[in-house]
C-alpha cells in the first residue's frame, strides 16, 4: 500500500542522532511485503544502522534487482535515490553508479534468486572488481514473488510446502564471496537484530566489497517443517563465530576483556569493530581458515553466522582504476574536453 502516506506526526521527545534526525527520517514507504516477512526486519536493521551511524540519508544510493527482497529499498531511506533495476543485474548498475560518484554510499539489496541464479555472474564480478559497496542478500531459499519455487540456495533435501524435495546442491554465497576476494564477508539472520545491525554498520564503514548473506525466512512459502530456511530451523542450527560491537571513532572503548576473548578490527574511517569471540581461536583475518571453518560446520549441518572474514584497508575499484579524487560526475568541460589545440595535433598525426 505504498500510496498510503505515513503520518508526519512525531513525538517531541523522540530520539535524535548527531544530525538531528530521528528514526522516522530513515524510513521509507510502508512495506507491502507479507506480515512477518524476514525482509522487513532487514529493512529495519538498515534504518537502525544508518541512524546510529549519523548518515545523511540522501548520501546513500540504494539499488536492487527484482524480487521480494529487491522491493525493500522502497521501504527504507525515503530521502535516498533508489534504483530497482533488472532481475539479477543490480551489481552492474551499482558498479556504474559507483564509478560515477565515489562519494556516495552504495547499498545493494538482492535476493537468493537475484544473486545466486540469474545474477550469479554479476554477483561474482562486482565482488572480484572490488566495488566499494554493502551487498546484502536476503536469503530465503525460495522464489517468493512467483509463489514458492526453490532457489539455488535451497539445501539439498529441503522440501517445499507441498512436500517436493530439492534434488540439487545448494550454492553458498558466503563461500563464493570468500573465494571471489570480498574483503568483508558475513552471514546473519533477520531474526537476530543484535547481530545484524552492527554487521551492517561495519559493512558500511568498510571500504571495499562488503557482503552480507542474511537468512531471511519466507513466511508465505518456506517457513514449514522440512525447510532449512525457516525461523525455527535457523534458530536451532545457528552457530555464531563472534558477537560484534560497533564502536565509532568518537566513542572510545571502555570495557575490559580478558585476553583472547576479544579482537579489535579497524575500519576504513577510523572506527572499530569489537569482536567478542565465541568460536575459540577463530581469526577473522584468515580467509583460508574461514573457508575451512565454514565447510566443517556445513557438513555438521550448522549455519555459521557473524563476521566471517574482514581485510583491513583492502582498497577498492577506484584505487585500482586510479581515478581522480573528484567524483567523475562532477568533472566539467575544462576537465574533460581536450579542446581544438589538442585536436589539431591529433589531426596532424593522421596525415
Amino acid at each position, binding site marked *: 500500500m505504498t500510496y498510503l502516506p505515513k503520518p508526519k506526526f512525531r513525538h517531541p521527545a523522540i530520539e535524535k542522532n548527531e544530525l538531528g534526525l530521528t528514526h522516522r527520517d530513515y524510513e521509507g514507504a510502508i512495506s507491502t511485503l507479507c506480515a512477518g516477512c524476514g525482509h522487513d526486519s532487514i529493512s529495519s536493521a538498515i534504518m537502525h544502522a544508518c541512524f546510529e551511524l549519523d548518515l545523511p540519508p*540522501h548520501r546513500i544510493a540504494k539499488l536492487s534487482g527484482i524480487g521480494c527482497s529487491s522491493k525493500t*529499498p522502497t521501504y527504507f531511506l525515503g530521502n535516498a535515490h533508489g534504483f530497482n533495476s*533488472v532481475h539479477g543485474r543490480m551489481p552492474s*548498475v551499482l558498479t556504474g553508479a559507483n564509478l560515477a560518484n565515489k562519494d556516495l554510499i552504495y547499498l545493494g539489496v538482492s535476493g537468493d534468486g537475484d544473486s545466486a541464479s540469474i545474477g550469479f555472474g554479476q554477483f561474482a564480478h562486482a565482488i572480484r572488481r572490488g566495488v566499494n559497496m554493502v551487498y546484502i542478500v536476503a536469503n530465503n531459499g525460495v522464489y517468493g514473488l512467483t509463489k514458492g519455487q526453490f532457489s539455488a540456495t535451497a539445501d539439498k533435501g529441503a522440501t517445499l510446502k507441498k512436500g517436493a524435495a530439492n534434488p540439487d546442491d545448494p550454492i553458498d554465497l558466503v563461500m563464493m564471496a570468500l573465494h571471489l576476494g570480498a574483503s568483508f564477508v558475513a552471514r546473519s539472520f533477520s531474526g537476530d537484530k543484535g547481530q545484524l545491525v552492527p554487521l551492517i554498520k561495519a559493512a558500511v564503514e568498510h571500504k571495499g566489497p562488503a557482503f552480507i548473506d542474511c537468512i531471511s525466512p519466507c513466511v508465505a512459502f518456506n517457513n514449514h517443517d522440512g525447510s532449512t530456511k525457516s525461523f525455527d530451523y535457523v534458530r536451532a542450527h545457528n552457530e555464531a563465530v563472534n558477537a560484534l560491537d560497533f564502536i565509532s571513532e568518537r566513542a572510545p572503548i571502555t570495557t575490559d576483556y580478558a585476553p583472547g576473548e576479544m579482537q579489535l578490527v579497524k575500519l576504513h574511517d577510523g572506527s572499530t569493530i569489537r569482536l567478542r569471540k565465541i568460536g575459540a581461536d577463530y581469526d577473522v583475518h584468515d580467509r583460508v581458515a574461514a573457508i575451512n571453518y565454514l565447510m566443517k560446520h556445513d557438513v555438521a549441518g550448522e549455519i555459521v553466522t557473524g563476521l566471517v572474514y574482514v581485510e583491513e584497508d583492502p582498497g577498492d575499484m577506484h584505487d585500482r582504476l586510479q581515478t581522480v579524487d573528484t567524483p567523475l560526475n562532477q568533472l566539467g568541460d575544462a*576537465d*574533460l574536453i581536450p579542446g581544438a589545440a589538442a*585536436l589539431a595535433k591529433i589531426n596532424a598525426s593522421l596525415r
Partner: protein
Amino acid sequence: MPIESVNDFVVRFANVNGSGSASANLMFARAVIRMGVPVATRNIFPSNIQGLPTWFEVRVSGEGWLGARGGTDLMVAMNPQTWDKDVASIEHGGYLFYDCSRPIPASKFREDLTVIGVPLTEICNREYAEPRQRQLMKNIMCLGALAAVLDMDADIVKTLLSEQFKGKDRLIEANHRALAIGRDWALANLTCPIGLRVNKSDGVGDRIYVEGNAAASLGAVFGGATVCAWYPLTPSTSLAEGFTSYCKRLRGDATTGKNKYAIVQCEDELASIGVVIGAGWNGSRAFTATSGPGISLMQEFLGLAYFAEIPAVLFNVQRGGPSTGMPTRTQQSDVLACAYASHGDTKHILLFPRDPGEAFEFGALSFDLADRLQTPVFVMLDLEIGMNSHLTAPFKWDDSRRMDRGKVMTYADLESGRDFGRYLDVDGDGVPFRTYPGTHPTRGSFFTRGTTRDAYARYTEEGGPYVENMQRLLRKFETAKAHVPAPLVDAAPGGARFGVIHYGSTAAPMEEATQILRNQGVKLDVMRVRGFPFAKPVEDFISAHDKVFVVEQNRDAQLRTLLMAENCASGDKLVPVLHYDGSPVTARFIARAIAELAESIDARAKEGALS
C-alpha cells in the same frame, strides 16, 4: 593490351594473416596519400589470428572516389593458399606481382596478365640471418619494388618509415636499407614503371586518414564521456581500445597523474550496459561499444533505460548477422534491432555516420543527445567504417562549445521550492527534469524503476498514468526529431522523378554511383538520412518523387521497413536496392541495380500509358 592508368587503379595485397604485412601495406597507402592522391583502403580478414588468408585493397583514385570499386588491376600475390582465386580475380590486362623465388608452373598464370616476379625470399635469405627479420624486411623490400614499378616517390616512403620508427635509429636505417634493396632490384631487373602509375597531385588537401573506431572513440573523449564499459567483440573492440589510448594521452590529471575516466572491461554485454546505465543514472556520461550479438544481449536493459529515461550511448559497429554470422564482414543489418530494441513499446534514437569524420562528430554529439533526451542513443557504425582507415576532413572542435547536460535540477533549484516530478512534462516537450543522487537532503530524491509509476515517480499499476507516460515518451521522441542530424540532399539539376535514400557507409559508393547514373542520363535526387527518428524532410522527399530507391546493406531492407513503420511512405513507393554479401557495396553495383530498376519502371509506365 595491359591496362594503362595514372592515379586510377586498384591494388590488392593477398597475404597470410600474422605475417606482419599489415603495416607495410598501410604504409603503401599512406605513401600514395602523401603524394597527394586520394586512396580508399579496405581490410578483408578472417576471424582468426594466424595462418589464414587476408587481403588489403588500395583503390587509388585521383578523382577522389572513396567507396570500394570492385575488381583488381594489380594483385600482389603473397599467399600460395589463395593464388588460383587471386590470379583469376584480376581484371583483363592487369598485373600480377609475386615472389618468384620458387618456380611456379606456367599453367598457374594467365596470358593476358603482365607478370612481375621479384625473388623477395631469395634476396631476404641472402641479406638477413634471423627468421623474423627476414619476414618483416621482406614486406618492406616488397614496398620498395612496388614503389619502383608504380613510379612512386621513394623519398616519401623513406620519410614515412622514419616517422614510424622515430627515436629508433637502427630500425630506421634497417628499413631504409630494405626499401632500397627492393627498389634497386626492381629498377635493375624490371621494366619500370608499368602501365599503372602514381603521379603527384593535390587531391588530398588537408584531409586525415583514420579508422572510424578510433574517430568515434575520440568523439567520446570530446563528448565528455567518463565511463566506458565494454566486452571484447569484433568489430567494436578497437573502439574501446581507442578510447583507452586517447584517455591515457588526454585525460590524465596534470598534477596527480590520476585518471579523469574509468574503463571497465566487463564479464559480458549485459554487465556493460548495466554499468553504463548505472553511471548515466548517477550523472556521468557513459558508453559501451559493441556489435549485433552484444545488442541482442542488452535488450532487457535497453527497455529499462528507455522507460526509466536514463542517458546511455551505444556505439554499434555492425557486422554480418544473424548469430555469429560474418563476424569480420560488414553489414547494416541491426537497424531494426536497435530502433525498436527491447520488449514492450520502445523506440530509440539512431545516428548514422558516413565515415570517420562523422563518427567523431556524432560520437561527441551522442552524449549531448542522450543527456538532453534522457534515453539511449545508438551510433550506428559498421565494420567498413570502423575497422578501415578512410580519408576524411580533419576533425573540428569549437572551443566555445559546452556539454549540454539537459534538464537537471540542482540543489539551488530544489531549495528554491521548484516542483520536482521525475516524469512530469513541465515544458510540453516530453522531456522531464531529473536529479542526480545525493543532491539535496530532503527534496528531489525519487525511486527509479522499470515498473509503472506516476509523474512523481510513485509506484502505480493504474492504466491511466501508464498511458499518459507512454504518450509523453512519444512526445519526447517527436522532440528528438529536431535534435538528430538533419538529412542531406544532393538534388539533380532540373529535378528528378526518382529519388534515392541511403545512409551510413553506403554514402561513398552512392556518390560515385550518382555520378555514373547521371552521366548515363538517369536523373536522381539523393537523400542521405543521418538520424532516426526521421524528420519531416524525409517524408517530404519521398512524397516529392514517383519512386525512391532505398539503398542499404542488409537482406530485409530494414531502413525501408522503418520508413514504412514510421509512416513516412507506403511500400509501393520505396524500391529496395540491397547488397549484403559482407563486402562493402560498390558504386558499380548500385549504378547497375538502379539503372536496371529505373528502366523497368519506365517500361512499365509506358505500357500502362499505352493500354
